[in-house]
Each structure stands twice: as C-alpha cells, then as structure tokens.
C-alpha cells in the first residue's frame, strides 16, 4: 500500500479540519446517561405505585381469607401495569447504561444489579414519602373509567364480595353494624362483633373509607372478620364531607360504645 500519511495531513490542512470539541464527540454518551437516569426515575415511580397497590394486602389477610383465596385475590388484583413498567424501565435503563462511553465494560450482572438497586431504593423512598399515594390518586381520578382498574387495581381488590372483600365509604354507623357505599356505588350492610379485628388509622365513622374482610351472609350483607380503615388520602381521594379530611370524625351509633373505636390499635 502507498504511504497515506502525507495524503491525510494534506487533506486535514486543505479542508481546514480541526479536532472537534469534546462534548460534540460525547453528546451521545451524555444522552444515554440522561436516559438511564430517566428510566431509573420511571422505574422507581412504577415500583412505588406497585408497592402502594399491594400495601393494603396485609399478609394477615391470608389467615382470614385462607391461603388459596388470598392467592386468588392477589393474582387477580396485582398491579401488573406498574410491575411491567418497572421491568421495562429496568431493561431500558440497563440498555442505556450499556451505551454510555464506558458502559460496555461492566458485566451484565453488575449493571442490572446497579439499576435494580437504584430503582428499589428510590421506589421505597417514594413510597415512604407518599409520592405513590399522590400519583396513584391523580391517575385514579384522571384515568378513563375503563382503564381505572388498570391504574389502581387496589380498588378492584375491594370489590370482590364473593371472596369476602368489600370496600368503600361508610355512610351510616350503628351498634355492631354500619352501611357502606362500595367503590362501585352499591349499598352494603356490614355486621361486626366484638371479635372483629380492626386495622388502620382512625375510626370507622361516616365518611371514612374502609376495607372489609369477611363472609357474605346475604345479598348485600357481609359479616366482617376484619375491618381496615384506609388513610384519609388513600389513593389520593379524600373522603367526601366537610371535616378536616373531608369526613366528620364523630360516630353516629347513638347506642353506646361500639368496639370499633375502643379497639383502635393502629
């Protein structure tokens, strides 16, 4: 072959070629770092929403429902959208990292572990900071009706009276029973006893939102084994009404003390 050195130098001089600024050569790498960061944030938020959507499923429910029914409920109402989005963000995050200037040097296991760790830490932090609650509520309120269950499968979990699960807003409280307007707008009578387990913050009061685990004993009647009072901002939807959190915190039993308030433990 002929000596190219003179040709190359001549071309550089004739075409007045100069070395490009460093950022111009490396903008792609920076863009992939940015994409990776974005994917970690998306993954963390999705994970946080997934945690939020299963956080009301206390493992103790398994004892009340029976393991099989618990698994069926969990499978049927798992937050698949958020789980899938978390995995998608993980895959894209790993891919983006791989395309950074030195990303190819790290092993697949290392990169995946790194991105999983980042997503997990930020996801749990997001859950602890209740970002998921606000985001979940916003999505729940704004999602098209048909897709609501996809974004917030948690509400659907409490619309399974056949499995002994019903949830909604308390509309009337009497001694050893209260009326519940379920999340899908139906009226239910909930009977409870001294042995009914009470979980969650606050009392069962008009306007509060609760999830009931029990046995269906009539067309629109459930005998509660466990009642969980959801936080006022559960799923970002404050209860309707005029109290500080929307609902009056007094009880309307009028028949003496009920075990519900007295045994509030959480």
């Amino acid at each position, binding site marked *: *072959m002929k*000596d190219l050195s003179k040709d190359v130098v001549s071309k550089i001089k004739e075409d007045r070629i100069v070395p490009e600024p460093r950022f111009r050569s490396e903008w792609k790498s920076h863009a992939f770092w940015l994409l990776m960061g974005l994917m970690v944030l998306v993954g963390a938020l999705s994970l946080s929403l997934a945690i939020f959507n299963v956080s009301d499923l206390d493992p103790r429910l398994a004892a009340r429902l029976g393991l099989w029914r618990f698994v069926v409920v969990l499978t049927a109402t798992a937050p698949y959208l958020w789980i899938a989005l978390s995995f998608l963000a993980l895959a894209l995050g790993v891919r983006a990292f791989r395309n950074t200037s030195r990303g190819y040097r790290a092993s697949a296991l290392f990169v995946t572990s790194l991105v999983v760790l980042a997503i997990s830490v930020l996801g749990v932090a997001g859950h602890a900071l209740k970002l998921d609650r606000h985001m979940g509520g916003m999505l729940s309120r704004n999602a098209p009706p048909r897709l609501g269950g996809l974004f917030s499968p948690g509400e659907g979990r409490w619309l399974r009276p056949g499995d002994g699960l019903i949830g909604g807003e308390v509309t009337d409280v009497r001694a050893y029973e209260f009326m519940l307007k379920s999340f899908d707008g139906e009226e239910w009578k909930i009977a409870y006893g001294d042995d009914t387990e009470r979980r969650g913050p606050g009392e069962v009061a008009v306007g509060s939102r609760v999830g009931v685990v029990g046995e269906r004993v009539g067309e629109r009647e459930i005998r509660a084994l466990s009642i969980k009072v959801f936080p006022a901002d559960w799923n970002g939807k404050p209860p309707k009404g005029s109290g500080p959190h929307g609902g009056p915190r007094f009880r309307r039993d009028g028949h003496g003390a009920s075990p519900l308030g007295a045994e509030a433990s959480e």
Partner: protein
Amino acid sequence: MSDRPYADLTDNGLVELSKENPDAFGELVARYQERMFRYARRMSYFSEEDLEDLVQEAFVKAYRGLNAFDGDLQFSTWMYRIARNTVIDAIRRKQARPQTVRLDEDDAAKLFRSDIDLRADLEAKDCLALLRGVIGAMPPAYREVLVLRFLEEKSYEEIMDIVRKPKGTVAALINRGRKQLLEEAERLHIKC
C-alpha cells in the same frame, strides 16, 4: 533533516501535539496505516484502492475526534475501533454483506492451527482456499472477534474496547466462533 521528525514521541504525546500541528498526526498515520489497512482488508471485501480510501477516512475521523481521546485506551485500540466503525459504515453504504473477505492463506491457517495440526506441507492450497471460504461465510460477529484475536493478536480487553462489548460476550463469541469454524471444517472434510 529526518523524514520522520516526530518518531521519538509516544502516541499520547503525538496526539497532544497533533491538536496544534497536523504534521505530527502524520507520524501516527505512518505508525498505524499498515495495521489498519490489513485489518480493514480482513474485515471486508473491498478493493485495494477502496481500502486505502477507507483507511484515510478512518484517520481523518480520528483527527476530528482527537479531543475525545483521553488516554484511557491505547491509541492503537482507539484507532482499531474507528477503523472498525468506518469499515462497517462502508459495508452498510454499499448495502451488502461481505461475500468473501480478504483473508490470505496464512490468515486462514492462523485461525485454524491451534486445534488442528497443520501439515508441514502447505502446498495443500485447495484446502486452505476452502478454509478461507468457510471463514468468509461465518457471521460477521464471530469473524471480527476471531480476526482481532488470532490475526491482529489483540487481548480480550482490547477486543472488548474495540467492539464495545463486555469481556464475557467477547470470550463467548470467540469460543463459539472457533467451535463453529471447526465444526464446519469437519463437515466439509477440510483437514489442512
């Protein structure tokens, strides 16, 4: 005055000097042009003239990107990477996969020798020609790592930096490539 006034400088020193003085870059070209030409020939099916243009193009690209060269890689490794990308781009431009790569018979023997003893009598030209055909028909991903490992005699780390793939992937490609090469040779009863 010497023909090569910058011959005493290291590659990294030449890179720094070249940013101000393109003549210094001529020394880097002189040092690596043959290796790049041979590598491009082994990777592609272009004519000698086209290969010279490609190598020239690769060096001009390298000059443009001198500021991105931070000494983390050896200059030769960085140059191989640029040459590889230039050849791949050229193949894509021509919208054709290499039909027959430009491996000579020595190249074919080098890729083959560590597992099968070469006969002392290398007059078996037909056999090596067949072998060259087998190598040329291999998937590019295998062929390129085999060329880098056994013909360019690059380490796994250097190959990793040239093809921008993790070391484990490089090792797997080399192993699978050799296995495929030997299996195909056995299937065709090639025993050089």
